[in-house]
Every structure is written in structure tokens, then in C-alpha cells.
């Protein structure tokens, strides 16, 4: 049986606005994909540890020294909106 996925709820978590048409289309496609990937349940992994990464990685440390970095001007060069040395965004805090 195919799983029903609440696409609208997930899209809200992912911060994407979807049209009604998109929600309907994705619901069917994602249900197909999910029922396909559920075949993983057949694999016996009771004793198996997870692999998060292909290489056995360790923490990488470096000396805490100041190095040359990008200038503020360069960092802001692609900003859709900026003010002085900052990225500008819509107001986040409501006035009381």
C-alpha cells in the first residue's frame, strides 16, 4: 500500500511555497519513490553500524591564527539588498 505523504506540511518545513498543482503532482511521485526506497527494509542491518561518510574522518584542527579573508565588499557583492556592511532582510521582530 502506498504511503500518503503530507507534501504541504513538508514543503512548509523546507520553506518552499507550492501551488495546488505542484502539491498534487509531488504527492503521487513521492509516494512512488518512497515505496521504492522502502525495499531497504529487506536488508538485514541489525548488527551493522551506520556509515555517515566514505572516509574515516577525524576532526581537523588548525592553529588559531588570523589569515587573509574575503573583504566585506566582496562578501556583499552578490547581496540582493544591503545596507552599509550588512545584508538587509525584512523585519523579523514584530513591534509591540
Amino acid at each position, binding site marked *: 500500500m502506498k504511503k500518503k505523504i503530507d507534501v504541504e506540511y*513538508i514543503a512548509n*518545513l523546507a520553506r*518552499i511555497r507550492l501551488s495546488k498543482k505542484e502539491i498534487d503532482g*509531488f504527492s503521487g511521485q513521492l509516494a512512488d519513490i518512497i515505496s521504492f526506497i522502502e525495499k*531497504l527494509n*529487506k536488508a538485514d542491518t541489525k548488527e551493522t553500524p551506520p556509515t555517515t561518510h*566514505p*572516509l574515516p574522518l577525524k576532526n581537523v584542527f588548525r592553529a588559531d591564527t588570523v589569515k587573509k579573508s574575503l573583504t566585506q565588499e566582496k562578501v556583499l557583492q552578490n547581496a540582493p*539588498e544591503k545596507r552599509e556592511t550588512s545584508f538587509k*532582510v525584512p523585519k523579523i521582530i514584530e513591534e509591540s
Partner: protein
Amino acid sequence: MAEGLYKLTACKIRDLIEKKEISVDDVVGALTERIQKTDKKLNALISLEKADLKSEVERVKQNKGGALYGVPVAIKDNICVDGRLTTCASNILEGFRPPYNATVIDKLREKGALICGRANMDEFAFGSSCETSCYGPTRNPWDTDMIPGGSSGGSASSVAADEAIAALGSDTGGSIRQPAALCGVVGMKPTYGRVSRYGLIAFASSLDQIGPITKDVSDCALLLNAISGYDPKDSTSVDIAVPDYTKSLKNDIKGMRIAIPKEYFVKGIDKEVKAAVLNGIKTLESLGAKCDEVSLPHTEYAVSTYYIIAPAEASSNLARFDGVQYGLRKKGKSLIDMYKDTRAKGFGSEAKRRVILGTYVLSSGYYDAYYLKALKVRTKLKEDFDKVFKDFACIVTPTSPTPAFKIGERIDDPLSMYLSDIFTIPANLTGIPGISIPCGFTKKNLPIGLQILAKPFNEETLIRTAYTFEENTDFHKRKPDI
């Protein structure tokens, strides 16, 4: 002399320039003419700003030499070049000019290469057909009704059509090897950690790797030499010595043990592909290799595992495209509205689909069932390979289960599109290196690729095996009629 220069390999171009028989201007001139002639049909290159090309030529001329001196390389549009448009073929990065170079760009330039164009791709590298680009699909030079493969479809198509001497692509689930196979060129995904990912716009950080797409195996070795190595800016790049890969260009595989996994020749694989790859295996045997059937029993789970892990990582990586720091912004009443509308407008269908799928498998209540389970199966896949590599130097398989398919054929059926990567995905999940080389053609004259896989950091084995095959066959010499 300048006529037909675009047909040459990187090695040949470099040698001719060194001998002063041709100039960098000759090469760039011939290539520009070629691009004008063929790219209208292919749409392989999406932004080639004339002023940029001029400055590239000027810059190269200041170089004294280098292993890639004067070699024009096309760069997939998800690799950052300082000040140059880099869009991932997505509307959300419209007009984006990175403030720095990817490490591979600095490395290529150090060796004297010049950037001759930005290669089209599936949006954010999400796809196996190069159809999801916001610039429209790239076409296959062998048959322009067909897809070139993806996601590095522009890189493969431009090299196959002689619009670029070589190219860089990126490979997360087969995105270098599968288009190389479908376009009849050589494509390598190096071991995870061999090449710095700094400046590669991330899709799935534990799977992504940059690699070369070239006209032959010698060029592959040359480019791999140039881009490999530890980079302090990428903490997942590995600090082990880089061998000179051109030393592995040896026509000798006598006594080499090659594994043929039976799970890669099952039903669903195209008959002509199967026949060509089996023929290729016979060729390797005739050259002295010892080929034996082996089993990689968890292969059937690879695609499912990948389509949990890759979208999960992608959904997190793509959170940065929110209209704040770069690219598109749709104004909204609140910050949340701005995010939602920007992403609604900026992302194409497949990008939305993958971000939603990734968010779903990571969401509360599903994490253990999907994501954690996939990570465990990933371990199983790794154990399969480890076992085989105890006895064998490499593994030979088809690169793709089918030759190039028609544009539009699978675009509305994501699951059938995802299955295009069935033979390439395991290498990304396990980090091992893989190469695809031309091994035949279908009756309709579409290229077929053979994939070779080896142990981590054993690119030398791939190059030696691929070179031996190439020296004794002539599939790589055939050119599309475009």
C-alpha cells in the same frame, strides 16, 4: 595548421604549442569557430563571455608553460570562478558571481589551462539527462534528439563535439561517468577526498567529487594530475601524496585480476549495452587480465540508499538559497514569506522534489526508518566492495544500463530517471574511484561506456586498465557527425 585544431587532445595541443607550431590564439580561434558552428544545436555551453575569454588568453600568455599550457577547458557551471557567472543552471543563482575561485580552478590555471566556457548541467546537478537546466536541455552530439546524460551533460557533450578540449564535471551519483558513457568520451570520478571540493557548490557533501571528462585516457591522467591533492580549505580532502598519473599510462594488464559482478548484468539492462561490455571484458582477457565472476550482494539496495542520503544532504545544503546573501530574492511581507516565495520562484521542479524528499526522510518520526537505515545499508555496500578488493585489482561493469534515451522520455517519471544511475551510484556511496571509457556503439550509432572501479586512492589502476583497453581498441577515435 589552425584548421581542425579543435579535434586534438590536450596532450597534443600542449605539445604543439610547446614546439611553437601553433599559438594559444590559434587554439582559441579554432575552438570559438567550432562552438559557433555546433553549440546552437547542442546547448552544451551556457555562458562564454567574450571579454572573459580574452582575459583568459592574456593570463595564459603570462604563464611560462605548464602541463596544460594553452589547453581550453570547459567548467561545469557549479564550480566557482571568481567574478564569472556561476549559476548551477538554476534561476535561484541568477547573476551570481562568486567572490573566490574553486581550488580546482586555481590549480588548472597554475598548469596553464584556460577556461573556455561554462558547461550546462541539470539544475544543481539533480538529474541524469541534463534536461532540468533553466537554460534548456543539452543535446547529445551523436543524435541531437537524445539526451547527453547528466548531470554533467554539457561537459560531456562539449568534449564529444570538440567544443572544448577537455572539461571538468562533478559526480554525486554518476554525473561524470554516465554522461561520458552516453557521449562516447572518458570520464573519471576520483576517490572521495582526492580532489578538493572547495568552491564546488554542494549537492550532497559526502558524495560529491570533481573530476575530468576528456577525449582519451592520457588526457584524463593529465587533468587528474593537475586537480588532485590536499587542500586546507576542504577538510575532507585527504593529505596523501599525489602520484604522477601519467606514469600509469602503460599498455600492460598481464596477470591483473578483474572482478565481474553478476548483479550488474541482470534483467533490465539493454541488450546492446550488455553485449558491448561483455565484448570489452573479452578484450581485457585477451590482453592478459584474469576475469572472474563475483557477487556484490547489496547492489539491489544502492539506488534506494542513494535516494535517501543524497536528497537528505541536498535539502540541508540548499537551505542556503533563501534570498539573503546572493541570487534571486522575491520580496515578502515577512522573512518566512521571502524564503518561501524566493524558493518557489527560484527552484525548478526536480530541485523542489529533492528538497522535499530530503526534508521528509529527515523529518521527525521518519529519521530512523529512512536515513539511519540507509546509512547502515551504506556500510553493507562498503563491506561488499572491501571483500572483492581483497582478491581483485579492479571491477568492470557497464556504466549505464541503457544508451542515451530521447529528450522528454523520462522527465515526468522521476523514478525511471533515478534508475539511470543504478551502476554508478555504489562508487559514490562507498567513496571508491571509477572511470567510464568508450567500449562500443549501438546499431543506431550511440556510444556505450564501460566502467572500471578500484580501491580508494587507486586511480592508477583505473588509468592503467583504461589505457590498455584504449590502446588496443579504437572506439575513442570515432567522432560524432555534427
